[in-house]
């Protein structure tokens, strides 16, 4: 099965980015869950969700597979001052832990997630380790 990326992207006010190694659909965060919903109804399954800290913004990146060998990247960009996006848990229940991890490591809140707590670090840990602004002790000493 193949998905018409351009049509899907256009329907969710996004665009298709073909510059990278895999095609990516970039959508605004308002349509993030609708996009996932539409894809899931077309039989697409997910494989990964993570974030990339770009300094001013944080990208939420999901990897999905349209068929066994066809892979699509979904992206949405969140500004640093407001890291909230709709949770994909209602679409793919397996997103549960992936979103908790993204919350734990980047501080992105997923609206609608049933149990958004820290998963890898202990409760009470301060800071979001994978943000670029989080320094390791060695770096702190060096600077």
């Amino acid at each position: 099965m193949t998905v018409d990326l351009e049509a899907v992207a256009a329907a969710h006010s996004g665009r298709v980015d073909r510059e990278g190694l895999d095609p990516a659909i970039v959508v605004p965060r308002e349509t993030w869950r609708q996009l996932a919903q539409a894809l899931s109804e077309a039989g697409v399954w997910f494989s990964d969700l993570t974030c990339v800290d770009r300094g001013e913004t944080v990208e939420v990146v999901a990897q999905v597979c349209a068929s066994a060998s066809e892979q699509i990247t979904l992206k949405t960009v969140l500004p640093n001052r407001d890291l909230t996006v709709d949770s994909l848990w209602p679409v793919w229940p397996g997103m549960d832990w992936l979103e908790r991890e993204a919350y734990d490591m980047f501080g992105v809140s997923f609206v609608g997630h049933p149990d958004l707590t820290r998963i890898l670090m202990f409760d009470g840990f301060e800071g979001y380790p994978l943000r670029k602004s989080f320094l390791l002790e060695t770096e702190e000493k060096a600077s």
Partner: protein
Amino acid sequence: MIEDHPRVGRLQKDAVTESIVLNMGPQHPSMHGVFHMQLELSGETILAARPVIGYLHRGIEKLAEHRTYAQCMVLVDRLDYISQYCNEWAYCRAIERLARIEVPERAEWLRTMYAELVRVTSHLMWFGSVGLDLGGWTPVIYAFIPRERIFDFFEATTGSRLMPNYLRFGGVKEDVDPAEMEALHAYLAKDLIDALDEFDGLVTGNEIFLSRQRGLAPMTVDQAHAWGVTGPMLRACGSTRDLRIDTPYGVYDRLDWESCTDTRGDALARYSVRMREMRESAKMALQCIERMPAGEVRTKVARVLRPPEGEVYVRHESTRGELGFHIVSDGSPKPYRFRVRSPAFMNVSSLPHLCAGAKISEFFAIFGGIDNVMAEIDR
């Protein structure tokens, strides 16, 4: 009359027990590492389960951002320490795709051979621990005999039993001594198969084992997709997804083998898929040894690699399922973002669904079938 007794009478009328919460782990003999499980029990039945992970979280993803690409290989080895070569290969494939590095023919064959050998050792480890989980010591003692023999080969050819650091971008570290390969060939062709037959005789036909596994924790393909389950667990529900076939890499498309599947979807199916996979892997390793062409094993790559700007996501069939490496490069010698999509992480996240409604004594039988590695889950 007993009903008239103030306490017994009430119990009989509405015999509901209060549920209790049981904490298992993180220090627990059969927890396969530091895994913590909160179980809500009503009597012996599991009402709800909540895994607590992170006790082994070493921050590998953050550390990798502070190392050069080649140095990251050390961390990659320590992710899933039961299938090291698969990890290394997946990571190499990601970097090679990003930096457009060609891999010589012989290196591909060598990588395939090592990956399949490590799949055998990994499944042997799992076989031993499944025995332990169900209360039998024998499988683990037996499973270590072939494992040690294959480790001998690893040690003789790569220098380390566990943490080889053997794959390089654009090939492998060095060629393998043909005498070692010949000895291994003899071992794989006969003794390993004998050992596997013996294991089948010990466990697979064992009536107690069968009755504890049959029909346990069933899962359908749709559920597996929804929960993100991959690898042998997914193939045990009838799916044919196997990245070695779907997105061919290495020399899998040139080997004569088949992907093992089962349609029952229960714990026994997971067991049988892995047991058959060991034989297939041994067969593949044999073919690799026989048909490996001569030639270079490594292309020249800059010592300090600077991949062009961009990002890459590579999916790889590790022993536990889909292992993904998502690398973002900013053109510097260190990765900008180093993300590992861990198969065991996703498989274990299905555990609450699988064990709801089961008995507490079945819990470890279910858990053993997942074949988790905490180091990879927690990273």
